[in-house]
């Protein structure tokens, strides 16, 4: 994503590259009347959705509007914490897997296949 290239921080960008990236952002904002408050609201909504599935590093989330290939795009960079990737999962109660998680014993039948 072009917008975040500078955050990754490779070589120092030239004035022309800076101008281009600034333009992409400012034009997307100009065209859509997207203001910082709107982006904050979107950020909060995104975080609440994503953190239901993945653990998010909320301090370092970036949400940005930029123009790319004739489209104004919303970019979000959401760092995920590596250690505890936990997720909620509600399996339907009638599957064998569900029963195992609840501690029930499940009977498994194995068929031996005779190899010739």
């Amino acid at each position, binding site marked *: 994503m072009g917008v975040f290239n500078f955050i990754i921080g490779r070589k120092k960008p*030239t*004035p*022309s*590259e800076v*101008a*281009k990236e*600034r*333009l*992409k952002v*400012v*034009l997307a904002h*100009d*065209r859509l009347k997207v203001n910082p408050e709107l982006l904050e609201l979107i950020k909060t909504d995104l975080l609440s959705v994503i953190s239901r599935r993945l653990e998010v590093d909320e301090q370092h989330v970036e949400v940005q509007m930029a*123009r790319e*290939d*004739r489209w104004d795009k919303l970019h979000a960079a959401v760092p995920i914490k590596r250690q505890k990737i936990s997720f909620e999962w509600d399996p339907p109660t009638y599957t064998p897997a569900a029963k195992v998680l609840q501690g029930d014993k499940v009977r498994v039948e194995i068929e031996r296949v005779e190899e010739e």
Partner: protein
Amino acid sequence: MDSRVLTITSGKGGVGKTTTTANLGTGLAMRGKKVAIVDSDIGLRNLDAVLGLENRIVYDLVDVVEGQCRLRQALIKDKRLPELYLLPAAQTRDKNAVNSIQMEQLCQQLRREFDFVLIDSPAGIEQGFRNAIVGADEIIIVANPEMASVRDADRIIGLVEAAGKPEPRLVLNRLRPEMIRRGDMMDVADVLEVLGVELLGIVPEDEMIIVAINKGEPIVYDKRSRAGRAFLSAAQRIMGEEVPLDEIEDAPTLVERLRRLIGFGPAIADRRVRS
């Protein structure tokens, strides 16, 4: 052949609209077309000076619109080209002296007499700009490869589309190849990527333009000037000729970059700019 009304606008001031209008108009007349150039920058007229015709003004656009004179009386024949005419702006009035309906009617009148009508729009997005585009078939946007100008150009593109006009084409003016090489100035591909419109021409920065304006002789007459040649190429493209994009030294490498941009394949990739 159908007449065409083209408005040259920019949003931002000082990017070269008047110079571009004067030179495109002169270029078209040099190729044998009958051309009327209209200065719609009421209150701040300059097209007359750029063309060297400031001493010949008797009547102006407001006089015509208010019925003080006939259109023919206000049109000033160019000093050098018999088929080039100027309709000057009024100097002692302001942009509200004319409304959109009057401008549209004026364009209709001019259409009957001329192959091309070029309208020099004022800077800004107010009544003057609206008047300038209302009668246009096509819009040309002039921008410099510099953040503020490109930002305003983008706004103009939006307003032009909202007015129901076809997508404008871009003249990128005042390029400095040395600055582009150093990375201090955006290049053609950068600007096109951001704006997403078709390119009509690129004009390098040229000191001789200031001299030309001071002398009242449009630069397009000067074959030695890169800017002059660039304006002539742009005029040819307006007429539908396919002219390769070699206005500035690094154009071939720029074309390579453009080739890789999505959506700019057909027009630019074969080193030509279609009208």
